[in-house]
């Protein structure tokens, strides 16, 4: 059905799009984007599609959107219907880790074969330019005085923004259950409430605030990266301010459950080739995504660590048992 409709829509486009190459490593690949078109996971899937095809790493790549419930619908469909199929992959990310826990999803990331972390964004805390809060230290003082009086605008409850707010509050010794978190459904709406001074602070990925900060409408107090970021060299990290929180909203690609080690090896190599290509570097630069490529055992270990930490903080915030 999906193919029928999008096929019709794209009929005009076929002439422009590059046709499948004959000498590719893998002939055919389907990438599931467990989100609606346009979002981060969809754009990641389509960027992968673009680079794999233009560099002739894979003959024909299709992207299939299966939106819903923080990616867990797409993940469930992937786990249940792709067992042992080396020609299907799924894009996912940190948001999925939280969604699996809060939605009590019957499937989880241990049921897929993670291949690599590809990109990531760091979280930033920002205030309106007129805010009395001038630094993270001021925010810490305000939170310690009365956490309820500090309202945080961010994305949906239990998402990366909420988790970061919880970790931040917990790290300074305040009960994370007391975080007065105001969830907004879209980045635009939460940014508007921050610009309008309706909330005390905003928490989101740095790129959401960057343009407003450059225009002098917002002040970015801090970022969640391990060291200062090249795109915002003046902004201190949480750690510099003495708040021991480091979090990355990463995106990854995973293969189906039950594939053979050889198949996993081949997919990993293809993805590695893609990550090292110029086309991928250009794509990341154009989208403003950081290359946080991590694969193999190192990625598995990082993933396990993230899942455990997320489980703990979601319990602390009171969103999971």
């Amino acid at each position: 059905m999906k193919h029928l409709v999008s096929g019709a829509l794209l009929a005009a486009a076929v002439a422009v799009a590059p046709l499948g190459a004959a000498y590719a490593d893998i002939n055919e690949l389907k990438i599931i984007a467990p989100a609606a078109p346009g979002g981060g996971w969809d754009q990641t899937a389509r960027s992968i599609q673009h680079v794999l095809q233009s560099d002739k790493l894979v003959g024909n790549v299709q992207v299939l959107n299966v939106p819903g419930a923080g990616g867990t619908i797409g993940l469930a469909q992937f786990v249940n219907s792709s067992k042992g199929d080396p020609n299907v992959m799924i894009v996912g990310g940190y948001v999925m880790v939280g969604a699996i826990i809060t939605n009590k999803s019957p499937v989880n990331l241990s049921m897929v074969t993670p291949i690599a972390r590809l990109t990531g964004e760091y979280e930033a805390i920002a205030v309106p330019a007129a805010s009395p809060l001038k630094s993270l230290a001021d925010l810490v003082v305000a939170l310690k005085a009365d956490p309820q009086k500090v309202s945080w605008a961010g994305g949906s409850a239990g998402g990366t923004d909420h988790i970061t707010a919880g970790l931040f509050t917990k790290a300074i010794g305040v009960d994370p259950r007391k975080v007065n978190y105001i969830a907004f459904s879209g980045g635009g709406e939460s940014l508007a409430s921050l610009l309008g001074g309706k909330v005390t602070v905003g928490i989101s990925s740095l790129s959401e605030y960057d343009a407003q900060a450059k225009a002098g409408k917002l002040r970015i107090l801090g970022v969640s990266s391990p060291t200062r970021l090249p795109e915002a060299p003046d902004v201190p990290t949480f750690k510099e301010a003495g708040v021991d929180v480091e979090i990355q909203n990463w995106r990854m690609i995973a293969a189906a459950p039950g594939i053979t080690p050889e198949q996993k090896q081949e997919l990993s190599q293809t993805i590695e080739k893609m990550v090292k290509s110029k086309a991928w570097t250009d794509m990341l630069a154009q989208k403003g995504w950081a290359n946080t490529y991590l694969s193999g055992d190192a990625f598995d270990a990082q993933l396990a660590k993230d899942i455990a930490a997320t489980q703990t903080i979601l319990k602390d915030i009171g969103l999971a048992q």
Partner: protein
Amino acid sequence: MDTFAALSQGVMVALQPINLLFAFVGVMLGTAVGVLPGIGPALTVALLLPITFKLDPAGSLIMFAGIYYGGMYGGSTASILLNTPGESASIVTALEGNKMARAGRGGPALATAAIGSFVAGTIATIGLALIAPTIVDIAISFGPEDYFALMVLAFTTVSAAFGSSVTRGLTSLFVGLSLGLIGIDLQSGQARLSFGVPDLLDGVEVTTLAVALFAIGETLSVVAAGARADEIIEPVKGSVFMNREDWKRSWKPWLRGTFLGFPIGAMPAGGAEIPTFLSYALEKRLCRKPGEFGNGAIEGVAGPEAANNAAAAGVLVPLLTLGLPTSATAAIMLAGFQQYGMNPGPLLFATNPDLVWGLIASLFIANGMLLVLNLPLVGLWVRLLAIPRPWLYGGILVFATLGTLGANPSLVELGMLLIFGLLGYVLRRYDYPIAPVVVGLILGPLAEQQLRRALAISVGDPLVLFQSPVALTLFALSALALFGPLLFYVFTGRKAPVGADED
């Protein structure tokens, strides 16, 4: 004045033959996806993004503008002729528009939608060009309590505007409100009424419900009536175009719709649906022949259609001036901008003036092109109604199912489509209005979230709702809408002339 110099420069860019071609492709694609229920401009632009990467920025942005406006327009065609709203912003159009079409006045209904969309789109685009920075400051100053007051106004005006009796209207509304509770609650992250079905976690899709209630429900009742249905649909009765009276009855609703749609569309949480509801309620109040509402009043098409197109332009205000995407399509257009290394936001007008003005100019072009393409086609479109009924409804079923599954290929989605279709049939059978169900599904969650945000920010103090002048004004208007007719009765001893069309 350099705004005009910049704009005329933009028009020059947009008028290049190759860009006109892009505008044409965009408008055609947009109209096509607008007609298909379920598939909207957002999906189309998203699917085209990777391809347009290779085109030049001006050309592809112009094409996106065409898709955006075309989608809004195409949605109304399906609503009027087939009673199948393709977009949530054209649900209201189906109410009067389809009644008109059945009475052989589909031509004027389509024409008033096309011209109204053009008028509203043009005025709103001028507004975008001239007063965007001012409008956006006002829009940003709206807090959750103000939005909640706006929702209350929508509830009070709308609940009285649909259907033949208030009780029946409210019953339908509460069905919609209940459906709106399904899914993950945004503020707490907890699932409500999902009964362990993962597909229900994201709630009921508005277009699925609308398509099911309108199209499937309609088909079922036609089938159930079988041979007893002797209603003959005449494709054309009288002129296929608008007559003098149609013009006279349309131009004011166009303007009122525009002035409702543009500012609400510019609000970060405004959207295109609320202005269509408000416009419909307003036109029903102001109409000299309120009895015609529900039986095909042209004002009920002209106003909401103008409102949704003006809102579509309004959405671009926060997008271009602040980089705030406030609708799905805007979010994807933002991705499109970023693809060309531009960052919409406070600096966009300064850093990429040629592209911004090119885009605004192309909105004018897209708008004009829609009118030129569609008016001559009105005669052709209405012939759709001459298709024998079994074929017509068979086609509607196929389109409705395809569109819904195209947007979300899932069995649960298909199941919901059928169940809500049955619900639509039952509601029709027992004479309950169906529009309030959709209104409840759209407004309920919005009102709830805004109320809870307002209360969370104030740490539980309900007085926050009455401390903003905007909210107070909107509450006062709601009270007037609710008690106005009653007071009128108390003071004059006569029943108010509006809302008097009870069974």
